[in-house]
C-alpha cells in the first residue's frame, strides 16, 4: 500500500474532514476490512459491518490521535462492529483456544518425535506452491472449514501482515492464546500442502 496513506500530512487532511482524503482511505482499505469481517460473518453481514465501520470511522476521525496506524485503527473498528453484530444474533467469537488437538499431533509418536515427518515439497519456480489451481482450491476449502478464531488470526497476521502485538491488542486476547490459534491455523495449512504434495489431492 502507498505509504503516504499513513503519513502525518494525510492524517491531518482526514482530521480536517477532507472528503477526497477519506475517499482514498476507503479505496485503499475497504477490501482488506471486508476480508477481515468475512472471517466472522456471512458475506452480506460482512458488507454491512464494514459500511457501519466507515460511518463510525468518519465520526471518530477528527479525534484520531495517530498513536496507531490508520490501518490498525480501522481494523479494530470493523472487528468491534462485527463482534457487535454477532452478539445481536446471540453469537460470540471465543478466543480461548479449545481443547482441540494440535492439527499435527497425529504425526508424532508418544515420545514426541516424528512418526510421519514432512514430505519434501516440490518447489520448482519461486512461487510455484500456490500457483496450481487445484492446491488453491484445496486451500480455500481448508480456510472455509477453519474455526473463525483461527481464521481471523491467520487473516490478520499472515494474509495482511499485521504486527503480532497489534493483533493481541485489537482483539484484547493474550499473546499466548493468539500464538496457539495462529499455530493451529498454520499447522492446518501445512498439513494440507503436505498431503497435497504426497497425493495430489486435498
Amino acid at each position, binding site marked *: 500500500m502507498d505509504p503516504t496513506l499513513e503519513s502525518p500530512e494525510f492524517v491531518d487532511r482526514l482530521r480536517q474532514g477532507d472528503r477526497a482524503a477519506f475517499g482514498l482511505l476507503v*479505496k485503499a482499505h475497504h*477490501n482488506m476490512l*471486508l476480508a477481515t469481517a468475512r472471517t466472522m460473518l456471512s458475506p452480506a453481514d460482512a458488507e454491512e459491518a464494514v*459500511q457501519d465501520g466507515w460511518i463510525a470511522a*468518519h465520526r471518530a476521525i477528527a479525534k484520531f490521535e495517530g498513536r496507531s496506524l490508520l490501518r490498525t485503527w480501522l481494523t479494530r473498528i470493523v472487528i468491534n462492529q462485527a463482534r457487535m453484530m454477532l452478539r445481536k444474533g446471540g453469537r460470540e467469537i471465543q478466543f480461548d483456544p479449545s481443547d482441540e488437538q494440535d492439527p499435527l499431533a497425529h504425526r508424532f509418536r508418544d*515420545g514426541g518425535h516424528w512418526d510421519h515427518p*514432512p514430505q519434501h515439497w516440490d*518447489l520448482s519456480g519461486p512461487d510455484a506452491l500456490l500457483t496450481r489451481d487445484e492446491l488453491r482450491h484445496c486451500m480455500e476449502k481448508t480456510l472455509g472449514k477453519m474455526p473463525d478464531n483461527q481464521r481471523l488470526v491467520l487473516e490478520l497476521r499472515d494474509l495482511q501482515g499485521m504486527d503480532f502485538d497489534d493483533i493481541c491488542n485489537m482483539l484484547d486476547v493474550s499473546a499466548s492464546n493468539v*500464538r496457539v490459534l495462529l499455530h493451529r491455523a498454520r499447522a492446518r495449512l501445512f498439513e494440507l500442502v503436505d498431503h497435497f504434495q504426497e497425493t495430489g489431492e486435498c
Partner: protein
Amino acid sequence: MLKCKHVVEKADALVDGAPLSKRERFALRLHLLICHHCRRYVRQLRVLLNSLPRNPDALDDARTREVLERLDSSQDR
C-alpha cells in the same frame, strides 16, 4: 533435549522473529542442527507463509463512490 513436537510448536514464533528467551533460541538451534525433519518443517513453513496471497486489490472507483454516498445518507438521518 527438545522434542520435535515442541520444535513444531515453537516454529511459528521462530519464523515470525518473535522474542524467544536465549535458552529457547539455543535449544531450537541445537535441535535444528541435528534434526533434518524439523529443519524441513521450518523451511517449508516459511515457504508456505511467503506464498499466501497478500493485500487484496484497492476498491474500484464506482464502489468507493457507493460507500461514500451511503456515508452521506447516514449523516442526513
